[in-house]
């Protein structure tokens, strides 16, 4: 069964870009959440193998999502990538400290993302 990637990102365009970048790899399925709440709702329903999240989202921020995921037995070991615009250095450090596996800065090249995904899923 194809491995599944959850993408939490509030910008539709950005989400589409990430999805198409992953689709180009051919091997993975994607599930999309337009905000943190949707991500929370999708998590127990979808068996997700990797999570990609933005930090700046309108309802709960990406850090909270990371903390929630790492504090939950079911997802403790699910690889998690933060994709965010280079912003606050402190936010970035917090994300990593909370247990994100990698932090990718927007704008990113498609092969950067593809390489990271392969690293954690293959």
């Amino acid at each position, binding site marked *: 069964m194809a491995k599944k990637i959850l993408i939490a990102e509030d910008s539709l365009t950005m989400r589409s870009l990430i999805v198409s970048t992953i689709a180009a790899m051919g091997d993975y399925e994607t599930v999309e959440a337009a905000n943190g709440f949707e991500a929370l709702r999708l998590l127990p329903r979808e068996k997700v193998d990797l999570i990609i999240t933005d930090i700046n989202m309108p309802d709960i921020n990406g850090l909270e999502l990371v*903390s929630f995921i790492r504090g939950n037995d079911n997802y403790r070991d699910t690889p998690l990538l933060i994709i965010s615009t280079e912003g606050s250095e402190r936010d970035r450090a917090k994300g990593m400290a909370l247990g994100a596996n990698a932090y990718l800065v927007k704008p990113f090249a498609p092969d950067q993302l593809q390489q990271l995904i392969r690293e954690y899923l293959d």
Partner: protein
Amino acid sequence: MADKRSSQALRDFISETEEIIGSLNLDLVRLADSLDCGDCDPDVLNGIFRGAHSIKGLAGMFGFDDLSRLSHSMENLLDGLRLGKVPFTQALVDTLFSALDTLIRLIDGKSGDEHFTLDLTGILAQLGEAAEGQAPAAGGPLAGLELDAGILNVLTEYEEHRLVENVRKGRRIHLLRMSFDLASFDQELAEITQQLKQHGEVISTLPSAGELGARIAFQVLFGSDLDQAGIAVLLDREDLDIRTCGGGVNARPPEEPIAAGPLAEFAVTEPDGPADAENGEGGSSLRSISRTVRVDIDKLDLLMNIVGELVLSKSSIADINDRLKSSGDKALATELGKATRILERRLQELQKSVMDVRMVPVGQLFEKMTRIVRRVANEQGKKVDLDIRGADTELDKLIIEDISDPLMHIIRNAIDHGLELPEERRSAGKPEKGLVRLWASQKGNHVVIEVHDDGRGIDLAKVRRKALEKKLISANQALTDEECYDLLFMPGFSTRDDVSDMSGRGVGMDVVKNNIAALSGMIEVDSRPGQGATMTITLPITLAIIKALIVQVADRTYAIPINSVLETLMIEADAIDTVEKREVIELRRATVPLLRLDQTFGLAATDQNPDRRLFVAVVGLAEKRMGFVVDELLGQQDVVIKSLGKALGFIRGIAGAAELGNQKTILVLDVAGLMNEALRGESSLNV
């Protein structure tokens, strides 16, 4: 980023940025409004920051360095502002507005040509200057709060700052815990957040880690003057647990948690009802991804055209059915009739659904106007309040697009020509700040947009003088007020000797009027000296498929859009009176002027008998009434209006062509145009 993005992605990008800009614009106006009280709403400010931040992220992905640099500078300044490092001043707001203007021009340009760019040196320098000398944010008394590391660790730098700000304001900091059904937690949280915001600030909403069952627990970090009892009463929830972590005017020690209900199982509870069981299992049909899709208006147009063709096919079937009934198999005709009626109902539903999709609130349009108002007011040194009402009134997306320039022009005019300078207003005993009202409302099948200013009003004597100068009227021509207003819409007319930069941007009111007429709408003027002027635009809700009254005039068939028809009458020839050389009829004590369509279109009447019965379709637009005299009323029908194209588009009195079900094409009357022409006394048109 040199990689090539698809043109679809680029279109997505443009439309998403346009959306972001729409709300940026509104939020900036709100931010500017809060200058007076010196304190800005953190939600509004954060919204603006997020907007700039999103555009920056997207611009980078598309390799738009210019856009990226501009949005980055804006974001940087906004970040300083929201973190309290940059003081909130008028100059800063002005800089943000010019930056937004540049941003809009940049995106406008790129939507036509992705290589479009602008010289950003000036605006970047301005933004940089404004963001300079950021004082480090005041060190916060975070240490005094009893918040555990688990919470502090997930707060963004901005949320930390808000926490400090709330403490500084002397608010208590509470941590509220409650749990929700996984199926509905977002709505419930949104409601709670809304309630809480009335009494303070929701600093952060955190999901509690734990097993995700049918329920999910959240902690809400809330800064407020309310105490625990107050919050308990406000939210009235069984499972609410409140812990006060500090803050408060007297920096009170944390209070004991109060138990509003069972406290034990916040983090996770097992499914406790059949409804939960249903929601707990993840069928793929429950998969919740974003619930909106963005659709190109051309696709909707295509869909609408197909629906239109279907409606016409349905008419053909109904036609065949009629013939079958009179000539063929009666039983079969009845069955076909039934099937046709079902088809008709379904088609109506389909048509309505497609129409609904095309409808957008005029608020989108009004948002753009807020920026125009600000800019024009600034440039002219005038103070203006914009009062918007009816922003949720819906109009066809295409009409919204087409009305946008005319409306902008009218609003510019209202501020430029209508409103006086502050000192002039003061000496006239008016408030210094002028008021522009932008109101929308739905009246039947029309939407009325009213632009009112409380300025000096239209100077009729001046209008007359100008018209004389321009030889639009003769010296001894008597004109009613209304006829004077009409002069404003004549080509080349302008009451200002010096055409100002704003109002005189290449278009006159004649163009505005023509644009509105092209949408089957009309514009009316009303003015009171010293009290201001009102421009009222009446527009049909949609243009795509309309119900029409089919009439016969001489041997021609025409369609009159039914939304303009108030009633139809059959009259005897002697019911017609003549007042001031115009034919009129008496209708419920009102006098309705008549327009004989056969004469208007230069058609020879088929029946020359002066005493024959005539039919009158009484049409009305806004407050005006008129009776169109026709030979026969042939019934109502759905028609799909097609433009006559550029070559024939100039024909007066005709709005377009429509196909009938039986493959016949007929002309659709331009009711507004005909009424205007007739009321002005030029009732002979040549077709």
